[in-house]
């Protein structure tokens, strides 16, 4: 779409112009924050980093183990996703669609269908990449659906956006599905857009019924979709995740 990309240079300057006062205000207020609050923030961040680091130590070992186990199963395991930090522009495009605009575009190599995450979980995917900005469709958009699995037992289903910023719908569940309130939903990696294993949401409370028919089940997204200023755009595995284990696979392929 070269025409759209060309015209977007004009319109993107508008987007940045609208965003400017708000980001400027945030910048100034962070400049003016006192020594005390900075010090407090620093200590809390340092503590958080300490905890994260110890958890990462464990994660390293687990990852190695996972690779070894997957090699035994002759299953592929892709590592090393590359990320780019992008900042949300404070603008509203269309009221009834959940589309956000970030300040990184094709000039940084962003392309459509890239998954977008934040520190808590999946945010959405890149919907359209323009030279200076890109539009991100959130997982809560009514037109968005994300393949997920229940972390507890690996039950596969699809989470569909509800149009509300704090709710996902799970319409495709059989009546006897083993799903409970509080279950963590993670990406299943099916479909090839989202890498497997990232948290998506927590299943909401729903009334237990006697005849085992499952009521309308919803989930709350993990990521703080309407508050976050910074998101991560991910370059995952380009290839589609294999749905079945390939038969002719040499052990050398599994070493990476």
């Amino acid at each position, binding site marked *: 779409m070269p025409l759209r990309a060309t015209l977007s240079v004009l319109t993107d300057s508008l987007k940045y112009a609208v965003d400017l006062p708000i980001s400027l205000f945030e910048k100034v207020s962070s400049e003016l924050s006192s020594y005390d609050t900075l010090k407090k923030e620093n200590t809390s961040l340092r503590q958080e980093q300490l905890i994260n680091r110890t958890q990462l130590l464990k994660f390293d070992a687990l990852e190695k183990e996972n690779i070894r186990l997957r090699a035994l199963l002759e299953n592929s395991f892709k590592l090393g996703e590359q990320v780019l930090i992008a900042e949300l522009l404070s603008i509203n*495009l269309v009221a009834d669609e959940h589309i956000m605009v970030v300040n990184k575009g094709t000039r940084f190599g962003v392309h459509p269908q890239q998954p977008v995450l934040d520190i808590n979980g999946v945010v959405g995917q890149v919907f359209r990449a323009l030279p200076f900005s890109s539009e991100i469709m959130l997982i809560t958009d009514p037109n968005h659906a994300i393949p997920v699995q229940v972390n507890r037992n690996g039950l596969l289903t699809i989470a569909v956006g509800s149009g509300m910023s704090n709710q996902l719908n799970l319409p495709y569940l059989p009546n006897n599905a083993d799903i409970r309130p509080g279950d963590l939903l993670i990406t299943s990696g099916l479909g090839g857009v989202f890498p497997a294993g990232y948290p998506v949401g927590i299943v909401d409370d729903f009334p237990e019924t006697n005849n085992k028919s499952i009521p309308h089940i919803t989930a709350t997204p993990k990521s703080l979709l309407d508050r976050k200023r910074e998101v991560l755009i991910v370059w995952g595995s380009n290839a589609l995740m294999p749905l079945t284990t390939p038969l002719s696979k040499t052990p050398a392929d599994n070493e990476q």
Partner: protein
Amino acid sequence: MNNSYSAMRIFITLFFAMCLRIVPLSDTLAPLNPDWVLLVLIYWSLAIPESVGIAHAWFLGILVDVLLGRHFGQNAFIYSLVIYACLVWHKQLRQFPVVQQSAFIFLCLLFSQLLFFWFKNVHASVQITGIFWLPIFSGTVLWPFIYQLMRSIRRF
């Protein structure tokens, strides 16, 4: 009036209208944000129909399509149709009292929103709620103020 001078005003007002179109609002106010660009464009087409025409509306619509991430030509098509109606009836519309003018604006906004709904449905069948129609009412209510403001800008 100097021609380049009025062109400058048209440009600046449309620039602010496009900014207002994407301004971040709270969740309750965001669905009420009317189509500022169309309202400002309607004003200019009524005030100086000899220099604001369908071609301007069409090009501006293309820009709004890019700005809002719509399919190409949606806004361009709608804006040109609405501006065509305004140009045809601009002599009568200028004589109308403000209430009657607002009624015409209501019809224009309703027409544009209906076309948006139709475009949305062509793309994929969609569910819309009542808030989809709110910009029509907010735009109609705001029209007298926009009209006064734009008139004072034009005569400034």
